[in-house]
């Protein structure tokens, strides 16, 4: 099956199996291994990317469903020299420990900040319901999102 995706601004046309998942295409075909897979039950959020502007779990989207979509991954939001304000805030607030959940957290948090008016602490906690941190560093993650909210 042929699919065409725009990923971080570049268009790719790929031949993929009918049962390919978006996350497999991103990681294995495009080498974008910043997007992680942390579970097989669609619960952890490590795989969150933006598809047509919305945060989605890329482990629970078939490549065919993403055909024609505009996808942004953690690799597409900033560079080492010019971090995205959310990445900057995660660094400043010490919001990552092992870093496994971080790409999904950051992509989820960017969508949350962009789509919510008057985001407060409870709103951040509710908004990140679908992102699990096995290091349990939630307190600093919430601090980082609130800090980035003011800089985005």
């Amino acid at each position, binding site marked *: *099956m042929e699919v065409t995706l725009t990923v971080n601004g570049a268009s790719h046309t790929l031949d993929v*199996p*009918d*049962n390919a*998942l978006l996350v497999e295409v991103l990681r294995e075909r495009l080498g974008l291994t910043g997007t992680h897979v942390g579970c*097989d*039950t*669609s*619960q952890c*959020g490590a795989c*969150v990317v933006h598809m047509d502007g*919305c*945060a*989605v*779990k890329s*482990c*629970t*989207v*078939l490549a*065919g*469903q993403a*055909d024609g979509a505009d996808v942004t991954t953690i690799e597409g939001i900033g560079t080492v020299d010019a971090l995205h304000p959310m990445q900057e805030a995660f660094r400043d607030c010490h919001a990552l420990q092992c870093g496994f959940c971080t790409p999904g957290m950051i992509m*989820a948090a960017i*969508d*949350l900040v962009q789509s919510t008016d008057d985001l407060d602490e409870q709103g951040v906690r509710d*908004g990140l*319901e*679908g*992102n699990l941190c096995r290091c349990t560093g939630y307190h600093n993650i919430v601090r980082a999102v609130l800090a980035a909210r003011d800089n985005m």
Partner: protein
Amino acid sequence: MYQFNYRKASSVEQAADLQASAEDGVYLAGGMTLIPTLKQRLAAPSDVIDVGGLDGLRGVDVGATVRIGALTTHAEVAASAEVRGAIPALSDLAEGIGDAHVRNRGTIGGSVANSDPAADYPAAVVGLAATVHTNRRSIAGDDFFTDLFETALEEGEIITSVEFPVPARAAYAKFPNPASRYAIVGVMVAEVDGAVRVGVTGAGRCAFRSVELEAALAGGLSVAALDGVSVPSGDFNSDLHASAEYRAHLVVVMARRAVKELA
């Protein structure tokens, strides 16, 4: 995942034709239930027929009733000011489903078609006296859920929309599973066309109306009317999250919370 053929439908008719000609074809909407099921190898369809591109089945139409296209996501329902104006309890319900990413993909049609005993929308379908419209007919909410993961839908039938009458008042209270956010018990209490209705999800094999609670509240929607009332736990679900007896207890507690919100 097992192998399957992925087919993208461009119309309801084409989707139905693809399903009819497949050896074992299954529809795909948001995929928030079906894809995890495929990943766990709990299903092995020959063909996955993606109806997600059928934009005609998307959107809300609020007038004398609230009609929600089958492909409308939980996030779209939660964000609709028109839905909130007509049936705030339905907005609250949609807003409380799973997490933000699930709400961005999961649809009302998929939720209703699946008849997961712990899903939220089924409580609204029975509690608010909704009608489920399909490509073949219209099915009364009361007749739609028939058993665990079973509905009145026939092989290949496609839900096109779910239509809710606007209740005089309604409230939904849910006791979520702290990990998945699915309902351990969820109760929709509503006054529709002068009658009190109580839709329950999470407790039984599928969503149902509680005759005991409806009888207790028939004289008026007050918390006191539920004092001493109990529901039988007979065929309720029992699992590691809650026993049947605890679920029966929660049904009354959630009903009290919903009624309190209405007062």
